[in-house]
């Protein structure tokens, strides 16, 4: 207990947080200005974004250096693990809000508008021509929206994407085994495979979005079906992107010879995140595309 190196590592003054706050603030104020049609909105956003990138690279760089220099003991590692778990839990709740919106629309609001569940008057007096259905293509009042021609099929790209993400979960686990068994080649191959599968997934999703926008006329403005479809898959895609970047960093660090069978928090965190993104996709596939 008393040997100095076993003490909890406490970093000293740091400039990264305040830089991050400035970056975030610039980013958001820029976005707000863009949305309200004020000037220099996009410039501010780019400026803020660059600061954020600088901050993240700098901050994580510092952490990696500290880790490599052996400043962290096991207790620090445990802190990081707990931190990551709770962060992922918060992400689960974030997605939960959007899934809640999806279920609310499917189970409650759309049927109500169609006259079910004691809402006969709503239907009779306000939307007499509306027929409830899911996926919702015929809207109660289409005049404000760009109506979609057809729903997104589950077979085809989405099914393929499911397969891709599931395989990437397998490859990242395979890489993890390798890391623990100190088989560096397998570790690197596994990570390369995982990252590639992730990128393939994103490419396919981009293609699918194009199909949705151009051929199906399905967009965020196509009523609640399009809204939930785009918001859920969009946020998921964003998370896949973040996960892929994390894995790329881990790949780079593996190439640089970081990580030991006992100390590889960054790897674990990225892998957990990747599995989380995977599970979200399975739910998405089931409730957004399939059922």
């Amino acid at each position, binding site marked *: 207990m008393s040997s100095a190196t076993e003490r909890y590592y406490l970093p*000293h003054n740091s400039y990264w947080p305040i830089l991050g*706050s400035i970056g975030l603030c610039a980013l958001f104020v820029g976005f*707000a200005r863009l949305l309200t049609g004020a000037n220099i909105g996009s410039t501010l956003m780019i400026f803020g974004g660059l600061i954020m990138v600088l901050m993240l690279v700098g901050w994580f760089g510092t952490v990696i250096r500290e880790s490599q220099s052996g400043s962290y003991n096991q207790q620090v590692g445990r802190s990081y693990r707990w931190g990551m778990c709770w962060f992922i839990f918060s*992400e689960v709740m974030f997605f939960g809000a959007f899934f809640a919106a999806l279920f609310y*629309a499917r189970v409650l609001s759309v049927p109500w508008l169609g006259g079910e569940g004691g809402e006969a008057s709503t239907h009779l007096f306000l939307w007499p021509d509306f027929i409830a259905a899911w996926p*919702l293509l015929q809207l*109660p009042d289409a005049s404000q929206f760009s109506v979609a021609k057809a729903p997104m099929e589950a077979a085809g790209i989405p099914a393929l994407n499911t397969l891709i993400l599931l395989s990437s979960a397998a490859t990242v686990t395979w890489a993890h085994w390798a890391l623990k068994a100190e088989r560096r080649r397998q570790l690197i191959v596994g990570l390369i495979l995982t990252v590639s599968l992730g990128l393939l997934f994103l490419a396919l999703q981009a293609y699918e979005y194009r199909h949705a926008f151009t051929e199906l006329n399905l967009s965020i403005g196509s009523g609640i079906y399009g809204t939930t479809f785009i918001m859920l898959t969009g946020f998921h895609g964003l998370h896949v992107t973040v996960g892929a970047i994390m894995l790329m960093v881990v790949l780079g660090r593996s190439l640089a010879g970081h990580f030991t069978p006992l100390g590889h928090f960054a790897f674990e965190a990225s892998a957990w995140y990747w599995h989380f993104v995977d599970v979200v996709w399975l739910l998405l596939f089931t409730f957004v595309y399939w059922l």
Partner: protein
Amino acid sequence: MTESVHAHADEKPPGLWRWVVTTNHKDIGTLYLLFALLMFFIGGSMSMVIRTELFQPGLQFTDPLFFNQMTTMHALVMIFGAVMPAFVGLANWQIPLMIGAPDMAFPRMNNWSFWILPFAFSMLLSTLFMPGGAPAGGWTMYPPLVLMTGDAFPYLIFSIHLMGLSSLMGAINIIVTILNMRTPDMNLMKMPLFVWTWLVTAFLLIAAMPVLAGVVTMLLTDRFFGSSFFNAAGGGDPVMFQHIFWFFGHPEVYIMILPAFGVVSTIIPTFARKPLFGYASMVYATASIAFLSFIVWAHHMFTVGMPLAAELFFMYSTMLIAVPTGVKIFNWVSTMWRGSMTFETPMLWAISFVVLFTIGGFSGLMLAITPADFQYQDTYFVVAHFHYVLVTGSVFGIFGAVYYWLPKWTGNMYNERLGKIHFWCSIVFSNLLYFPQHFLGLAGMPRRVPDYAIQFTDWNQVSSIGGIGFGLTQLIFVYIVFQTIRSGSKAPARVWDGAIGLEWSVPSPAPYHTFQEPPKLAEGELQHEGT
């Protein structure tokens, strides 16, 4: 990195810069507390505008739109700017001291959690000067009304995103600190109750804040990107917003009260000189309240026209919360029972908390009775309820905590006489301020109105007088705090003779770095175990 683990000597950069870059939990705790005080005054000034306008029927000083802006901003500033940061500040100062940790688990992230806040609130407050004015749709931001906000709208949304991010990182930090940084001798069931309540609160934050972030994002896309979450024409429903919002909103109110429960559970045993009664049941009650808080949200929405079964479910689940909360109240009373009590200022706040919070809880229970809520909802009865739990509950809890630990933080004793004056004025004025609001609500005065029918005049005048009095009283508090920081008699390590716990084993003021070695728990070092 060359900073060696030995370099823990106090290296504080000179001047204000120190506060910007610090990673020390005590510095950051101080920052949080001062920020909260500032916000309390800003939010309070807005409430003074409200109360002055309501002193008489007729429009006196404000345009109705500006009045609505004041109501909305008052609530947002008080909740997200004053009460929550104050509790995080207390957590920052006290949790490492109480569990024998050298600092928070993630000191750098701790700095970031704080330093997002000034930016978030600058953004929010700047909306007051924007075309179309500040948000005026109530702190609950119900669409479609809130979608009609002027240029302020995206700033409102983004400032909430920032506050959410700050609370989230703060909560992760606290939860990990508690789970991973305790001195090895302290298992979970030996933790001080303040630590326990914060553990549960942090969990509530992590579960609730992302939901708020999600739902305001939906507002943003509905306004700017053509989505139809809250628009029936596209298959959505404005009420959907309310469900998701209150799924966050109800846990949020317990986020603002659980740490105060922890404070009271710490203060009462100290001044009763008797171990806390029913430590284990306190822990279980806290956990049950947290669990229940996730299944009662729709009690804020009884009048939206839910199916009967839903109304019944939410009525019953809400009523249930009275049971674990009652357990807490009874335990506090039993702790006092046959104690050897003295009544220093912190104890006075704690006792008044027990009484006034219970009154607020009673009106909460009345609101939970659905048919009766059809009358109470959106009247001043609700306003009275939540100010009893929030002001005479949470804020009084914070006052108690500040008086209790201020000598530990500053090394100086506050002025007991002034403290008592602050307390008694607050008690008298806050009840003058809020108690008549029950009558107003029952008699039929709606909330969020700048003007009212003449039969409501008398009680509004009483309430406004109470309000101004209560506001002025808080100036005493500021004086006391700054006087204590600058002068005052030196405080001993164990400031209160009945005080037990690790934080009292270090000198006052607490050194910049404490517990670099995990401390051993001496016999009788835990408050609830009895000596």
